[in-house]
């Protein structure tokens, strides 16, 4: 399935112009929680008109919302939200998602590993109320790549689409 691969030599590498074929959504919006909510809802609506199944839409909605919330919280300084761009390309059995922002780079230049916050949980501790975001992202996407080009963060990942169930 070469057109699903994010490996070397594909045209889906960071830094490529966004004019590649197969784009089903391309949105730019402000990095605050209200705009993220609207942006995600618009994106999901757009994808729903492209024949993406409800279960897959749910997966995309979860992971895109988590990535965008992290950009709002960590990439841009509070009170000075920059822009976020989300581009989705359709492949035969995947959606390729590209998310760009011009905020701070990821710590140590890497996307978080996303360990479950209770991996080292002590039953006497209070149950963690945060730290589930990157765990969800890592569980739900494939081929996640983070790149920093000039002053831009570029996150790429793939969401595998389920097969339509015959009715």
């Amino acid at each position, binding site marked *: 399935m070469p057109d699903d691969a994010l490996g070397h030599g594909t045209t889906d590498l960071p830094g490529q112009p966004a004019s590649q074929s197969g784009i089903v959504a391309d949105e730019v919006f402000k990095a605050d929680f209200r705009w993220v909510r609207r942006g995600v809802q618009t994106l999901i609506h757009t994808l729903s008109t492209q024949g993406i199944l409800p279960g897959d839409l*749910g997966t995309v909605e979860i992971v895109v919302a988590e990535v965008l919330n992290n950009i709002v*919280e960590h990439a841009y300084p509070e009170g000075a939200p920059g822009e976020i761009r989300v581009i989705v390309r359709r492949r035969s059995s995947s959606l390729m998602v590209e998310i760009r922002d011009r905020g701070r780079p990821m710590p140590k230049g890497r996307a978080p590993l996303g360990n479950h916050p209770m991996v080292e949980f002590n039953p006497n501790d209070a*149950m963690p109320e945060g*730290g589930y975001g990157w765990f969800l992202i890592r569980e739900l996407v494939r081929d996640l790549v983070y790149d920093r080009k000039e002053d831009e963060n570029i996150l790429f990942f793939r969401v595998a689409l389920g097969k339509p169930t015959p009715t």
Partner: protein
Amino acid sequence: MHMTATEIGPALVVAVGDRRIDAAVAVRFKDKMLELTKHPADRVILDLGNVDFLDSSGLGAVVGSMKQLGRTRHLDLAAMTPTVEKVFRITRMDRVFRIFPTVDAALEDKADA
């Protein structure tokens, strides 16, 4: 954040009217839960039937709401829609909470939670 609390027998059923519990409203959700659960019921059933979407901030706020109840009171969840259910299942929080398919099923559950 639209939420209502109804006393049904020994339980307090808190219904969420909003379609999303996400980062934009997570703090307000938790505050509203604190306010509504001043009612002394030992068992609170959170009716998520209207909620199409919950993110990790919303999940954290549900966990926080459970902690706010203290050790002697319980928070059970009911009527999850598919995407909400997916977030609980993947994070394995479905093992932390008792989850019922409907509010009625939660109310019929005789076992002390």
